[in-house]
């Protein structure tokens, strides 16, 4: 675990709230509005942290632990991503399973915290969240299979690091497909259009927002920061697959990564401006479509 690697993770953590901000700004500009400032989320977080806390009489410790566990597991997951394009602060054979497990742990904690309120709105959101995740997780592993085939390594550092850069010349088509599939996954896992609309204000139509309906103050700050971080982590996955940076120096690779994250955020905003939310029953089909792309990417590499 190198100091540079930890600094890179720290920078990523600082930059994370800007990513959804860029997406919102893009959407506002494309739809002819001014929109909130790009750095609005920082101000929101600062405000929420200073607020008092209100808890429902129904809730238990699980309600308070949810946001904490969710954020902590995402931070640990960030340690497995090779931000400089070569080596992550932590790696071991099969750490992709740990990465997926950490995302699942965060989801488990947050969804249970929602159910702890006993409200049917949270139940609705929880049910939808786990349904979508059931199709997102196999898709993610299909992407990983394609990456394992390309890079021949079972850790994220290997799959997204130097071996990936070496694989691009002969597996470029396949890796581009993986990138697209991961982008769809990013939209689904982070409750963006076309799976969920983060801007909606009707509880019945929401997924992620409705699970955290009862959280407020510092707890909500943890959740909002956590979802920004999750979006950023998926952005890192997409950028790392599409733009191998193993040949660059550390700072240059990091700079390119942040530029790439900006592009991903703009892309999310563009998708939100040009598409409507699909019906909930169609969401599994969307994800199966993404899985099919990843499967094609895998087949392209089978010999």
């Amino acid at each position, binding site marked *: 675990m190198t100091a540079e690697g930890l600094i890179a993770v720290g920078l990523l953590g600082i930059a994370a709230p800007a990513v959804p901000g860029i997406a919102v700004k893009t959407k506002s500009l494309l739809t002819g509005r001014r929109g909130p400032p790009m750095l609005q989320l920082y101000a929101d977080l600062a405000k929420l942290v200073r607020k*008092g806390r209100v808890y429902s009489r129904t809730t*238990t410790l699980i309600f308070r632990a949810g946001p904490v566990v969710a954020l902590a597991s995402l931070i640990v997951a960030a340690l497995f991503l090779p931000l400089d394009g070569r080596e992550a602060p932590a790696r071991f054979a099969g750490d992709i*399973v740990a990465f997926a497990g950490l995302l699942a742990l965060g989801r488990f904690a947050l969804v249970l915290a929602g159910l702890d309120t006993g409200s049917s709105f949270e139940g609705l959101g*929880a049910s939808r969240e786990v349904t979508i995740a059931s199709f997102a997780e196999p898709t993610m592993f299909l992407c990983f299979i394609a990456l394992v085939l390309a890079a021949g390594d079972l850790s994220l550092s290997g799959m997204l690091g130097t071996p990936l850069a070496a694989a691009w010349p002969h597996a470029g088509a396949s890796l581009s497909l993986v990138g697209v599939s991961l982008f769809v996954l990013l939209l689904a896992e982070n409750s963006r259009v076309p799976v969920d609309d983060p801007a909606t204000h009707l509880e019945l139509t929401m997924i992620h927002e409705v699970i955290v309906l009862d959280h407020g103050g*510092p707890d909500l700050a943890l959740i909002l920061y956590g979802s920004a971080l999750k979006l950023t982590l998926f952005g890192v996955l997409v950028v790392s697959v599409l733009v191998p940076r193993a040949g660059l120096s550390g700072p240059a690779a990091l700079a390119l990564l942040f530029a790439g994250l900006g592009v991903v955020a703009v892309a999310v905003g563009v998708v939100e401006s040009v598409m409507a939310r699909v019906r909930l029953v169609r969401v599994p089909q969307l994800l199966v479509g993404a899985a099919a792309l990843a499967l094609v990417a895998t087949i392209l590499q089978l010999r």
Partner: protein
Amino acid sequence: MTLVAVGLTLILLAGLAASREALFRILLGAGCLTGAVPALAVLAGETVRDVRVAAATPFGPWVFGLDALSAVFLLAILSVGAACAFYGLTYLAHERGRRPVGAAHLLLAVLVASLALAVVARAAVPFLIAWEGMAIAAYLLVVLEHERREVRRAGMIYVVATHVGTLLLFALFAIWGGTGGTGDLSFDALGAHAPFSAGRGGMILAVALIAFGLKAGAVPFHFWLPEAHAAAPAHVSALMSGVVIKMGIYGLLRTIVLFGAPPPWWGWVVLALGAASGVLGVVWALAQHDIKRLLAFHSVENIGIILLGIGAGALGLAYGHPVIAVLGFAGAVLHTLNHALFKSLLFLAAGSVIHATGTREIDHLGGLARRMPATTATFLIGSAAIVGLPPLNGFVSEWVVYQALLRGVSAGDAMQFAGLAVVVLAFIGALALACFVKVVGVLYLGTPRRTLATDARESAAGMIRPLVGLAVACVVIGLVPIAVVPPGLRVGSLVAGLPAATAGLPAAAAAGPATMFTIALALSLFVAWGLYVALGRRGQPAESATWGCGYPSPTPRMAYTASSFAAPLLGVFRSFAGVRTHRTAQAFATHAVDPVLDEVLVPAWRGARTAAAWLRHAQRGGGGLSRYLLWVGAAVVASLLYLLAVGRNP
């Protein structure tokens, strides 16, 4: 082996002393500890000499031995057995006088002892004796509440299924040892028959797969499992789900040890059975409203994960990838041990809820977390473990199975296609998460839906202590993978028939960093919670009602139910899900049916009975004795004509 024998004797003595609770505790605890010592020693790398009883026993000498494969199963049997037996003392205490409680404790001791005997037996005859002892003890325990009709039905289905399995085992040993001529059915002698011709080898493997698959509860042989597990008392369900069905896994692994590398088709079949059991098990679990049936279907799911490991291992052997073979078998064995721990934990915690509320119906409960905190906490740990979340034990074994399959992806031959089973494993994991979110959410969180949940009280310490013990085991294994992965790899290489040192090295090397990861994760969760509590100290939090989006008086009836929670997922699976919906003008209800039992076996059995009734009518109906004699005469004439036609003298 002496220690194992002493341990088993103590366990049986404990059973006989069941009427004196303190003595039962001491003897059973001592017996389990004594038996566990040699098992741990063998897993640490020691070897134990076989015991041979060569006196005029039929079918060769009776041999007993303890190798790494037996040891890991023995460990699971003794630890889970002790927890269930202690739990049973308190669980059945209020039944004293109404039911033969002492006999139930004795039967549980017999069950544990015969399970242990089955894994140390090294010859067909003692193995079959132990196998039958296990089946019968389990049957008698399942029908403990025999005044209820569904319990008797479940018991009958179980006893038929298990005896079909036993018959197949007779056939297995007959085919396997048949042509040797010596009649020696000790496992060493059986192992010496290998290699076989393709036909006979195929027959052996197919029969073994069906016989042991029936015991393990793999789809489509799972039909007896949810019935029996739902009908039995909680601690018996825990022991059956945790250990008894694992004897099928033991049988499969032992078959591979004795048979040698199986042909590729067998590996593919096992992999396919694993995928089917895993996905269908969890989908059917999602459809259940009965907590014990739900947990039982999760056993089917986990058997699926274990079979995926065995399938990967068998294919690794068949295609010549030793590392994949060792990892696959090691993952299967580790998941067997881990599933024994967390599934028995979940069943016992569910038993605690049933004990407190008197119902198994999830949708009648709710809000138990405030009333039964210890049960809730341990059930939550078990849930996180079964879903495979780090840093708990389910993650460790699933990680090993994942590694076996992922290494298959880049293996470069037909093994690549086996690697695609990774997707199935991920799908199973995500669906299991959905299901356990549903259970924990509906059972423990929110508000009570009926008064029986409002009046619930935490169970007695005698039931909580085994829960805590099992939960601690789940956490410790999860935190220190390096303590279990190397022994697991040793077992894996024993099954694969490969030297332990070479094959599993890459994974053994990764157990160290994985341990660092799990400990670091646990620490960061701990630190994060500490920071949260410390920083949040200023200002007392206010209390209020749950936000109902403006609706001022929410009632428990509005809370999300288990059916509504699972509806979107089950909608995707439609025809596979085994859900019947009943829709009337006023009410809407769903109820779960088992696609194999209710839609194939029961109709088939009815058809067979109708055919038999018709045959009986044709044979004896109307004409009485004279018609019967006519049939006999006709049969004799037909045989004579046949012999005449083929030209031989009678």
